[in-house]
């Protein structure tokens, strides 16, 4: 059995046999950190290429097809270019804050990786308030954007950062409320509990209308939270050159760029975990044969398949919808999404109490 859990257990057993418990813990933490950074690098390469391909196909173009076979090495070449570029710090910038901001963006993204279950029993940290942790830490993202915008000493950066602040703070509410819908049904904030509650069917099938509404609102809210089109007012290249990262270049820019894609991956992973059952295979009632076949597909493939499906949906949004204005953006949140998700939460709670879901 070559499952992730098996590999992790083997490594743990080998380390425990050769080192004392403290050293084992430290080595395991380092290994986990390296694994997360490796995953980040791989995700960055894959998602940038995927975005460009999806964009090209939606716009009836070909997309990158020059570097490597079918253009598969394009994002690698771009990364190489960004690495060898000079990371310039402007004269008028607040040097410390300017240089720290991209790293804060990455640290937030790394922290968010902790409670995500990548495969069956394969999770960095299954803390009992996993979902709360995610929604709390993801709001720290705005700090790095505000820092970058403020310290750049550039009006475009500042405008972008301020817009981003207003946007993330408001959309957090409806994202939180739609997450709460699932928490109400499951009765637990722990990620592993939420996944195990979906063993007999994902919440999107079991929860009827309230969960569908919560799912749609969640997708809209996280699209806004990750500053992606149609909510990309923080960058808005046609109005603000590049928004909060106007002054960034080289690897510091690359970190912001990477953080955006990592955040997209994370929110899609959370969405897949909450609504689509995380690594749970697709099961239909008592079709024993069908369920058995589905169980043969590894849990990590289920997880990444669902996550990448949601990532595709978010990319699909980006290349379909035009960008909103700042007042339209706040109208959408405060006048539509928030009231709807509040009523939706009320209905979901009533359903959970009365046991109207499967």
């Amino acid at each position, binding site marked *: 059995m070559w499952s992730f859990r098996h590999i992790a257990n083997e490594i743990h057993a080998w380390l425990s046999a050769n080192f004392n418990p403290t050293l084992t813990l430290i080595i395991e933490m380092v290994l986990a950190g390296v694994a997360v950074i490796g995953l980040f690098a791989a995700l960055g390469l894959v998602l940038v290429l995927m975005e460009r391909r999806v964009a090209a196909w939606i716009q*009836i*173009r070909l997309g990158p097809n020059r570097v490597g076979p079918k253009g598969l090495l394009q994002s690698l070449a771009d990364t190489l270019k960004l690495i060898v570029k000079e990371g310039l710090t402007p004269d008028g910038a607040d040097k410390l804050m300017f240089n720290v901001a991209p790293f804060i963006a990455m640290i937030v993204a790394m922290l968010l990786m902790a409670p995500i279950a990548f495969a069956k029993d394969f999770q960095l940290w299954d803390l009992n308030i996993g979902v709360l942790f995610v929604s709390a830490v993801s709001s720290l993202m705005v700090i790095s954007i505000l820092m970058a915008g403020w310290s750049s000493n550039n009006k475009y950066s500042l405008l972008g950062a301020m817009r981003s602040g207003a946007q993330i703070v408001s959309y957090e509410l409806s994202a939180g409320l739609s997450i709460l819908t699932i928490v109400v049904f499951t009765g637990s904030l722990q990620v592993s509990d939420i996944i195990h509650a979906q063993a007999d069917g994902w919440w999107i099938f079991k929860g009827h209308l309230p969960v569908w509404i919560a799912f749609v609102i969640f997708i809209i809210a996280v699209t806004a939270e990750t500053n992606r089109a149609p909510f990309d007012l923080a960058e808005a290249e046609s109005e603000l050159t590049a928004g909060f990262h106007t002054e960034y270049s080289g690897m510091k820019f690359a970190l912001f760029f990477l953080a955006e894609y990592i955040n997209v991956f994370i929110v899609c992973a959370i969405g897949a975990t909450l609504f689509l059952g995380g690594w749970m295979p697709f099961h239909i009632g008592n079709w024993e044969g069908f369920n058995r076949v589905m169980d043969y597909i590894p849990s990590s493939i289920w997880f990444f398949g669902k996550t990448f499906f949601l990532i595709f949906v978010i990319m*699909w949004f980006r290349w379909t*919808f035009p960008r909103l204005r700042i007042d339209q953006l706040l109208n959408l949140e405060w006048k539509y999404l928030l009231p709807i998700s509040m009523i939706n939460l009320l209905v979901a709670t009533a359903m959970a109490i009365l046991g109207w879901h499967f």
Partner: protein
Amino acid sequence: MSGKQCFVSVKLISPKYMFITKYIKEVFGAVKSLAIGMKRTIYYFTHHKEIITQEYPDNRDTLVLPERFKGEVVMPHNENNEHRCTGCQACELACPNGTIKVIFKNELTPEGKKKKAIDKLVYHLELCTMCNLCVEACPSDAIKMAQTFEHSVYDRNQLTKILNKPGSKIMEGVE
């Protein structure tokens, strides 16, 4: 249909609370219109056959340009090295950037009369925005837009072109 629905909602809900029906209609209308847009883009995504872009340097020999593509202004000449330009300056006046300059000379007609004709029709490609106003202004169809577009040169002077060929004259019957 919509009028009937409106009538029903007026009957059921007092005008004071009409904003609720409006709100709900707005939400459904928004979701519907977004879904229509997404349907269109997923159609393009899944029907990945027709490509509107050209793989230019590779298909340079077989490049098919759209009919309305405009590359530069040219003056067609016939086999006797004759053009249709009367030197009326309509193109020069029509050009918003001062791209075209008409320089005259005096020609002697066979009857010994002096006649005004163009010496040089100077065209500054580097100033041209391909707006097509000169071609539309020309009363005798002397100039037209060509589809050539590889205009890079090392010296800016090479972009100043003289459209009439050396030794050319005006076609018979064009006034």
